């Protein structure tokens, strides 16, 4: 196969972008902007989904909450022994947690103080990786905390610093910071202040036989649903949530089925289609004449279509690539202006940058969206004009 004619056609197509630069810019700039937003959406979605996956190391196989009149209440530790006797059980860990509104520190921002029974806690082998600095709590620790990255940032706290907290009722406590969570799991941990069960009980005024909920660990994760079903049957006045369901909840909120994502994606798709339509309807007198002249000079219809498709491909590719780069730079700059909107209710937590993740499928999807319709649509009018007699095309 002689590739030289094709190279000439492709080079001419590339040169045409410069020749008709006003037209090229008119297509490339809006396409680039649309693709920048689309890229930002894709990268942010990827980031949230990835973090949801990483945050599984924090999640127990099952969480059991007490329920009274359909509302979540404290749970009595009296159920712990009966749960512990269910087959496949590994550990049942009481947890006490509550919110700390910190109006004095930052308006409308709450932190979560969480106390764990460190003698029973079960940790994923990846848990140490979730810490950016310091160590996690060990059994017997009192007056010590591990902070989420947002909390650490708000208080400018470092390991070994003293941290003073207070709630709206005036309850106060002071802790030593022993560790700070990694920002890679910030969606889950940014607002967390993790301490011992005893310290949390003391702060929130829980009795020794009470907890906010129970974290249940099974010996085989695939048995989690079966165990959850057994707990539900044994204790109808509890709410039983599996870790898998909670992870899926986060994943779905930001996945392609997520409402916000779907709406924005739909708008972007429509915008690209509008651009493509505008490009297609650019088959005007000038283009028709150009195609007619090229045919009159002995160009084959296939050669004209190849050149026009390459022109549109380069236009779409350049616009999409520029858009993706702009989106990427915007993300690197910390998504100024948009993070508050995108994080939604998470804005009551300490501010944190939107997590991003850029993978091959996302990039491929962006290029398909930006390049394929643009290339395909140019073939149709070029073919339609290319198949009529040259003199008719010139005279149009």
């Amino acid at each position, binding site marked *: 196969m002689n590739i030289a004619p094709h190279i000439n056609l492709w080079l001419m197509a590339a040169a045409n972008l410069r020749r008709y630069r006003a037209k090229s810019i008119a297509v490339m700039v809006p396409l680039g902007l649309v693709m920048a937003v689309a890229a930002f959406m894709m990268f942010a979605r990827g980031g949230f989904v990835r973090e949801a996956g990483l945050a599984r190391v924090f999640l127990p196989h099952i969480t059991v909450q007490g329920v009274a009149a359909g509302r979540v209440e404290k749970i009595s530790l009296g159920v712990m022994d009966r749960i512990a006797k269910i087959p496949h059980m590994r550990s049942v860990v009481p947890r006490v947690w509550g919110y700390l509104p910190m109006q004095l520190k930052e308006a409308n921002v709450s932190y979560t103080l969480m106390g764990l029974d460190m003698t029973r806690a079960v940790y994923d082998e990846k848990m140490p990786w979730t810490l950016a600095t310091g160590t996690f709590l060990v059994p017997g620790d009192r007056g010590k905390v591990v902070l989420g990255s947002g909390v650490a940032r708000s208080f400018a706290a470092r390991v070994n610093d003293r941290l003073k907290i207070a709630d709206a009722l005036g309850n106060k406590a002071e802790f030593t910071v022993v560790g700070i969570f990694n920002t890679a799991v910030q969606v889950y941990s940014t607002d967390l202040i993790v301490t011992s069960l005893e310290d949390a009980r003391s702060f929130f005024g829980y009795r020794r036989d009470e907890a906010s909920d129970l974290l249940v660990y099974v010996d085989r994760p695939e048995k989690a649903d079966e165990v959850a079903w057994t707990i539900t049957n044994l204790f109808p006045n509890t709410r039983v949530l599996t870790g898998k369901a909670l992870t899926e909840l986060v994943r779905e909120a930001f996945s392609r089925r997520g409402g916000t994502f779907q709406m924005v994606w739909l708008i972007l798709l429509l915008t690209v289609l509008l651009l493509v339509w505008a490009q297609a309807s650019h088959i005007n007198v000038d283009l028709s004449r150009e195609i007619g002249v090229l*045919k009159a000079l002995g160009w084959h219809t296939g050669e004209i279509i190849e050149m026009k498709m390459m022109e549109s491909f380069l236009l779409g590719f350049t616009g999409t690539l520029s858009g993706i780069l702009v989106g990427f730079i915007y993300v690197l700059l910390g998504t100024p202006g948009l993070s508050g909107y995108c994080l939604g209710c998470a804005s009551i937590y300490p501010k944190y940058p939107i997590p991003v993740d850029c993978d091959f499928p996302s990039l491929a999807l962006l290029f398909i969206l930006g390049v394929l319709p643009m290339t395909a649509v140019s073939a149709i009018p070029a073919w339609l004009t290319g198949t009529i*007699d040259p003199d008719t095309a010139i005279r149009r």
Partner: protein
Amino acid sequence: MIRLEKVTKKYRSGKVMVKALDDLSLEVKKGEFVGLTGPSGSGKTTLLNIIGCLSRITSGRFWLGDEEVSHYPDHFLAALRRERFGFIFQQFNLLAGYTTWENVALPLLPMGISEKVRKGRAMRLLEELHLETRANFLANELSGGEQQRAAIARALINDPEIILADEPLSGIDGKCAGIVVAILGDLKERGKTIIFSSHELPTALATLVDRTLACEAGKLLGVPPQAARR
């Protein structure tokens, strides 16, 4: 070399069907210099377009050499246009965004010839036509006469055996017309077959033409007897 037999060409203009060529027959020999004259709408340009394979006949038969090309598929016609014809349009039909030399070299591009060779061949022709100083000008920056010469250069870039020129002297000044006539004379000397159209036979071309055929309402007058008999 070129033979048309009882050729009819109809096309739609709005809601009206127009008969541009009406049962027309013609034979042109290799190396002949033929002028087609007649008023606007008489079918001169349509006839040139048919001969140049830019348009298809509605009925009749059309031979190019020994080949009957009336029903050739599109890609064969494109190959004929590329290899055997040079077409000089009345409106020049240069592409506005391209430089003069790029316009001249356009027919060579899909043949896989490198830019260096294309430019070299275009520059040689532009020099012959005294247009070398305009080689890097955009087509729309050229005067009418310069555009005509660039269009001629483009028609000659493939060294075609048949030159078709639609109103080659219209819209250009006397000096440019002189250059164009000289070029056509030179092409005739080199044995090219040339067919041109014009409202009237220009005096400058009168000494060059072998035959003048008058077009009227899609028919030819003054057709040689041997073609009419077929």
